[in-house]
């Protein structure tokens, strides 16, 4: 059992370690808590591999567990901050410096700022989209219909296009 678990854990960290590192940035701003969250995700993965029966892919399993822990973390350390849906965030006008002074701002910082404003469900979809996962896989991980995911991805693309290329309706 230990060998199987260790083998799965090693594969998961080798293949998705970088993605998990990025994921925690999207859920926690404080570097110390971020480290704790990452450790918690790794611990949960280690424990969860006892029950992994290959009914879904290793990638789906890793992302499911990671997002599960990340959302629990958001709930536990919930701050008095309003989280928005994709529809709500689309209606917020961009600041001037985002439209004409884009070169002077760090793109990653802007992207993270945008992600941190989103509510957990939309944030999960956006993160998985940014990890280049297709709608079917995202739906499988988040237990949502592929149609629902596609509609969210469509909005995400529009939102990102406006924020990063200055295109689309304002």
């Amino acid at each position, binding site marked *: 059992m230990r060998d199987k678990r260790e083998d799965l854990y090693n594969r998961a960290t080798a293949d998705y370690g970088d993605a998990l590192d990025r994921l925690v940035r999207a859920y926690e701003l404080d570097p110390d808590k971020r480290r704790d969250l990452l450790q918690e995700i790794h611990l949960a993965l280690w424990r969860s591999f006892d029950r992994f029966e290959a009914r879904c892919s290793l990638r789906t399993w890793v992302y499911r567990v990671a997002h599960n822990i990340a959302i*629990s973390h958001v709930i536990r350390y919930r701050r008095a901050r309003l989280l928005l849906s994709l529809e709500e965030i689309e209606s917020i006008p961009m600041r001037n410096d985002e439209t004409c002074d884009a070169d002077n701002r760090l793109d*990653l910082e802007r992207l993270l700022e945008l992600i941190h404003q989103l509510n957990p469900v939309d944030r999960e979809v956006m993160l998985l989209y940014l990890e280049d996962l297709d709608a079917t896989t995202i739906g499988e991980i988040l237990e949502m219909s592929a149609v629902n995911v596609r509609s969210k991805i469509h909005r995400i693309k529009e939102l990102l296009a406006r924020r990063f290329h200055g295109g689309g309706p304002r």
Partner: protein
Amino acid sequence: MHNTRANDPKLIWQAQAREHTLISVEEVRLKAQIARRNVCRNLVIASVSALLLVVFCSLAIINFSSTPVRMIAAAMMLMTAVIVGKAWYRMWPLHTRSPNAALVGCIEFYRRELLIQYRAAAITWRFIVPVVILAFLMWNAVFRTNPLVPKILLSSVLILLFFVRRRNARQLQRKLSILDTFEEENSR
């Protein structure tokens, strides 16, 4: 719209430099052992309290000739055995995370986790209270002290237990109400 390497959000996201070094298997294994030790500790405390309770009940059966007292003691022994057995069955397997990641499943999972943590502590209190009461009743038969000593000592322990348990219940209520608010806000 044409995505270049400089402005494609996917590429910007995936090109992030790694912030944390890889967490080693040993580190994770150690943490898993610590988590398991905590569960074990709670179960051991509950089991020791239950054992004490069984001993007290056995003493009551031996020392008292009254049939109702014996029946009550026997019923308590049976209940204790059932509760401890159920606790080991429920809590001994490591409590692993639910693979369901949808928000509703996740909130439900967290709520369940809070309740399990509370129950693990509550079962200890459930055994300690009767143990303290029985110890109070049997003190003078076992120890030769001033009769005031057990009265003061054991009633203080009961009061302490009452407040600690009440504090735990309040903490759980607070966490659950935060969870409810979170769920409500995100279901809008």
